[in-house]
């Protein structure tokens, strides 16, 4: 029995430990706060450890782990909304989100993340899972518990919106007259 447990736990380590950096990234991109995101990942990993032996052996581990993290994030965001709290409470600086890159790229990244933040939550998660975490459409559908067609339409709507927002944002040239005012940044 002990050796079973030992094997299970070794298995867990081998499968899940390499995912931790990506889980932190996904959680931070959703919650926009380093500490809260790491709290969430910790919670996620605790659940993974607790449920490891009951998971579906035939299922994909990565998908299963991301689904746990995603559901925790959604619970958290719903709670925040209910309490009317803004997420970025204390000393969350932009440097916590991204490492400073050369100035212009850095600005561009910052804007991209800011616009991403304003997308509806459901589009944001799809974009992150597919574009950043490299999940296939089918995997993203399982993580989010939605049909693959819905993944595709959320991805398309989200990307279009993000593209329009970025194009409407003058970085160094061409002010675009018709950009939606809500997406404008006051400097």
């Amino acid at each position, binding site marked *: 029995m002990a050796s079973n447990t030992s094997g299970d736990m070794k298995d867990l*380590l081998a499968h899940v430990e390499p995912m*931790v950096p990506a889980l932190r990234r996904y959680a931070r991109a959703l919650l926009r706060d380093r500490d809260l995101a*790491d709290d969430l990942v910790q919670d996620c990993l*605790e659940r993974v450890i607790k449920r490891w032996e009951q998971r579906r052996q035939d299922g994909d581990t990565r998908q299963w782990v991301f689904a746990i993290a995603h559901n925790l994030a959604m619970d958290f965001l719903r709670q925040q909304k209910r309490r009317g709290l803004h997420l970025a409470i204390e000393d969350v600086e932009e440097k916590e*989100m991204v490492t400073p*890159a050369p100035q212009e790229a850095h600005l561009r*990244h910052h804007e991209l993340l800011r616009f991403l933040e304003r997308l509806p939550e459901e589009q944001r998660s799809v974009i*992150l899972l597919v574009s950043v975490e490299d999940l296939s459409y089918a995997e993203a559908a399982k993580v989010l518990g939605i049909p693959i067609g819905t993944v*595709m339409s959320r991805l398309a709507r989200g990307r279009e919106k993000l593209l329009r927002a970025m194009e409407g944002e003058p970085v160094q040239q061409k002010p675009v007259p018709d950009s939606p005012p809500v997406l404008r940044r006051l400097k």
Partner: protein
Amino acid sequence: MSADNPTPPPILEEDLHAYVDNCLDAARRREVQDYLDHHPEAAAQVAGFSAQRQGLRSALASIADEPVPSRLNLQHMIAERHAPRQWHWGMAAAVMLALGLGGFGGWSVRGMSPDANGGIAALAREATSSYAVYAADPLRPVEMGPERQTELVSWVSSRLQRPVAVPDLSQSGYRYIGGRLVSTEHGPAGMFIYDDANGTRLAMVVRPMAIERDTPMMKQSEGNIAGFTWAARGLGYSVVGTERADALHPLADEVRRQTAAIL
């Protein structure tokens, strides 16, 4: 397209995204490419999506490159999960052996979990369990009251072989009520306890650090006890209490400010 091929299925929106995400097979990819060559607007949009995808990846890449904080160390978490409630170290060690994770030395050598060997994550746990045992005791939380502060400071300093001082938190509304020497897995530690007007207690635990001798502040929480732990110039500090973490944070900052000034 050769004449004997049937007309390819029409290019749909989802094909464009699948193109951007590199998940089309080679044949379909060529068809989409061909379509884009003849439809500049779609091509511009696809270029925009690709740039967006790349932009997000680079913007977020650094997060995944950060060292994973010790509290998210999976080996550690697995071992701890098998140690019920207050830290039964013998048991945790037995579990780790049973799991074939090797001794602490092996961990350090592999660089996987230096904190298991007495770093700030260990100090954080020790402070939490000391708080639970002593500071939460309603009747006799301290061994030496505030009137014996000098005596306690010299006792703790001599046992730690480092000069320590009792931070003054009165400006933050916390009164020093005394302290004691406590035992940890990594040797003796000093514990100084405070309370506020409502009787809410917090404690600062300090001990020398063999490793992780200078670290930024780390947040911790176990049950209803939260805290912040860091190390500076070889001394580790942990400020713990039942207050919410965001209320403890400025107090920990103040302790860090004062202890840094003393050093």
